[in-house]
């Protein structure tokens, strides 16, 4: 009986703990948005963070995009050729990328490459009293440290996803057209005819913006909330990657359900 009560108590404690944390994180997001004026006026602060979060993630995003596109080319051809529709390879590659793989895989890579770095940096700034020092210098760390990183992530993510998709399409072209010999004309023209700007590309961009907000919000919050110890920062970095990856997958399912209903 006591074991059951303990179990229920534990379960309830965890549930209320998570709800508390979500509430705290939401207030933190509101505070960040309210304190964004300064960094948007002094855009150099955001530009610097775009370099660290976005530009330095380019290599991994571009290389991954290329390989994902090449694999799509191989697998897609293998399936399509059975139905005699290998000329639709371009459509398959492009739609898979702009609708799903671009935003999702770029988001997952962004979470592990940039999200973890943002959390670790902010966590260490807190542990070494840099944030406290800033506050004592009458400079609000939310406005000066958190907001620029948040906006940099939100701006970088859709751009990275777009580059991932573009690189993927190129990878599919390399394998499909150059290596296997699918007709180049039909590869591109079918792609042009089938990919709709609003239905496919715009929805993909919306997804990547949502993922950008989710990943960067989680990353800055985990960093700011990290206990100021080595263990605390390492735990927060892990949580950033795990939570934001799961959030991306869950959000992707929800967004897909809303966006693409086969109409």
């Amino acid at each position, binding site marked *: 009986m006591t074991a059951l009560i303990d179990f229920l108590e534990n379960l309830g404690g965890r549930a209320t703990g998570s709800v508390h944390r979500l509430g705290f994180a939401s207030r933190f997001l509101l505070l960040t948005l309210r304190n964004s004026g300064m960094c948007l006026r002094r855009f150099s602060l955001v530009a610097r963070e775009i370099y660290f979060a976005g530009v330095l993630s380019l290599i991994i995003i571009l290389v991954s995009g290329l390989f994902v596109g090449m694999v799509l080319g191989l697998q897609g051809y293998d399936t399509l050729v059975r139905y005699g529709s290998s000329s639709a390879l371009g459509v398959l590659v492009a739609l898979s990328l702009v609708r799903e793989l671009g935003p999702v895989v770029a988001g997952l890579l962004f979470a592990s490459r940039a999200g973890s770095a943002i959390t670790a*940096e902010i966590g260490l700034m807190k542990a*070494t*009293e*840099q944030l*406290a020092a800033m*506050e004592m*210098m*009458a*400079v609000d760390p939310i406005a000066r440290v958190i907001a620029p990183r948040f906006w940099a992530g939100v701006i970088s993510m859709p751009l990275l996803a777009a580059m991932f998709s573009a690189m993927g399409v190129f990878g599919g072209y390399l394998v499909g057209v150059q290596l296997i010999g699918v007709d180049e004309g039909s590869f591109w023209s079918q792609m042009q005819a089938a990919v709709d700007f609003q239905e496919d590309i715009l929805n993909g961009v919306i997804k990547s913006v949502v993922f950008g907000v989710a990943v960067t919000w989680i990353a800055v919050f985990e960093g700011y909330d990290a206990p100021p110890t080595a263990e605390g920062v390492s735990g927060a970095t892990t949580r950033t990657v795990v939570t934001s990856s799961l959030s991306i997958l869950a959000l992707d399912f929800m967004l897909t359900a809303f966006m693409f209903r086969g109409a």
Partner: protein
Amino acid sequence: MPATDNLVEVENVNFAYDSRHILKGVNLGIRRGQVVAIMGPSGCGKTTLLRLIGGALRPTQGEVRVNGEAVAKLGHDELFALRRKMGMLFQFGALFTDLSCYDNVAFQMREHTDMPEELIDDLVLMKLQAVGLRGAHRLMPSELSGGMARRVALARTTALDPMLIMYDEPFAGLDPVSMGVIGHLIRRLNDSLGATSIIVTHDVAEALGLVDHVFFMSEGAIVTQGTPDELRASDKPPAHQFVYGETDGPMPFHYPADDYARDLHATEGR
């Protein structure tokens, strides 16, 4: 301008984290222009007191006034306005690791003033010259020794000529030479800026040779105060034990524990 001669006044301040009482009825006044030390063993509430003065914490009871303003009653903007007149040197300097020494010192000037870059340039180099590190202005914090980092942090702390400078354990982890340099700089900067300085430390020798007045804290209260000579001569047991570094006294050597024999599983039959 307030009539009192004290820049900082702490009146009957209590502070507790939940049920853990850190400060119990602390009263003190710090006169303008002085360099004072708040000393006492680790965990006696010194740093908490400093954070209350800087407005990072609010007292559970009582009032802290800086330049006549009750710190805890100030709103966000007023508190930040007051903090522009304060400087705080953190224990390990807390330099911004992504900025060079130069940019660290220039940080507040760029954030709070509209000064042109040429003027900032001159001021930063003058501040760094005062701590002897003008030649190191391009270095990053990771390239500095502990003592140098502390000196750059000191230049950053005094960047906007504060009226009150607070030091949290400025001597911790420094070699004797760096310690002497920091002590000398604290005194010189205080006097040349016409500021008031509060040093929280447990480094007896260095602090007593430097300050005008000492407040000695133990277990969350001020147990004695006076000039360094008066503290050396103090017969109050906690102060005496502390100044002369005796291993046992009012500050016990042992952390409170259960009966020793029982902990070692000794039973009567054994």
